[in-house]
């Protein structure tokens, strides 16, 4: 029975039941009713997510180390970096806002990256099956709390508010952050849970 259920999939958007088929490389399976993407070629999706997670780790470190924007108001100068933003919130005693910003902008994205790397390590050497299972579950939860893309849009909105009063220069991290968001949306967030689980069962059960 369990074997049979593994061959089925329910569309996330409209909840129609489908039977899974093996896909050739670079092909995508879509829902017959609403057209929502169900899954794609599994091996390719996982390999891409892992390799791009290394890219995004480097980009993320750069985005955190250097200023995103430099603001000049007359003789005053200030910089925006992600750590300085969080420390400002904490030093002004906005602990709730500070903690949630810390989680959604730093901790959750890092958890996603390290989960992919750990998962690759475990599946490559076929180590601890139960740990790999937990990592996939953890990955899915942390992915829904990672909001760097929304943060990047917020920077643009904040710039519009500042344009009238200040001179603004873009820092090194602005580019790193923009690239991080692109990689994140295209490769790390686009992989479906079912693709990870299919890959998982292929590695550990050789199905």
């Amino acid at each position: 029975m369990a074997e049979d259920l593994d061959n089925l999939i329910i569309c996330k958007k409209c909840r129609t039941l489908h039977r899974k088929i093996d896909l050739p490389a670079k092909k995508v399976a879509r829902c017959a009713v609403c057209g929502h993407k169900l899954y794609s070629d599994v091996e390719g999706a996982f390999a891409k997510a892992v390799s791009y997670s290394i890219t995004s780790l480097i980009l993320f470190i750069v985005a955190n180390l250097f200023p995103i924007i430099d603001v000049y108001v007359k003789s005053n100068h200030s910089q925006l970096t992600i750590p300085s933003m969080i420390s400002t919130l904490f030093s002004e005693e906005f602990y709730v806002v500070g903690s949630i910003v810390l989680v959604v902008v730093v901790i959750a994205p890092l958890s996603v990256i390290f989960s992919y790397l750990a998962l690759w390590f475990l599946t490559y050497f076929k180590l601890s099956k139960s740990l790999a299972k937990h990592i996939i579950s953890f990955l899915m939860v942390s992915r829904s709390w990672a909001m760097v893309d929304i943060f990047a849009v917020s920077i643009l909105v904040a710039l519009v508010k500042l344009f009238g009063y200040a001179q603004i220069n873009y820092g090194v991290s602005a580019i790193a952050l923009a690239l991080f968001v692109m990689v994140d949306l295209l490769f790390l967030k686009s992989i479906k849970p079912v693709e990870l689980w299919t890959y998982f069962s292929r590695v550990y059960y050789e199905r």
Partner: protein
Amino acid sequence: MRDKYIRCPYCESVNENTDGVVYCRNCRNRISGRKEINLHTAWAMLITAMVFYVIANTYPILVFDKFGSISQNTIIGGVIALWDEGSYPIAVIIFLASVFVPLLKFFLILYILTNYKKPQKGSKRIDQAKLYHITEVIGPWSMIDVFVVSILATVVHFGTVKITAGIGATAFVLMVFFTMLSAMAIDIRLMKEDSSGD
């Protein structure tokens, strides 16, 4: 009266839909608990979020200290100020993200919670699942205003001119948090019951 199969929201695997609590056969997460408890949790989270929404909109989200004269901005005040300055697209984005989207989420969750008892068939059932899908996708975008306030509070921090976050910001963050929890507490079985039982 119910579907034969149920989709695990964590790992997307297909499970048999039995009475009572259902644990995913693949990832062992709980897919569905006792219906009454889920319903009460979703209601409790929703009401909490609504209270925080009122607080977030009445108290200032941003405090602007300019040479000692302090002006305070509420969310709506900020939107109106942007509109007056002529930044229409940004005013619309902030309005949608901070005022409209949370309200939309409240109404969608209310709709699902009040309609779950009626058996749904065919297209109407698909619509409800789609509505839920939309609330999941747009929900996090409400965070824009909180991020903007945090960014402004960091960069506008000079001796005589200073921006700090207001009480409204804390209430707003908690509102987003509880709305997400409320949406998560909604049991997928609450809205997918139908009489065809495909």
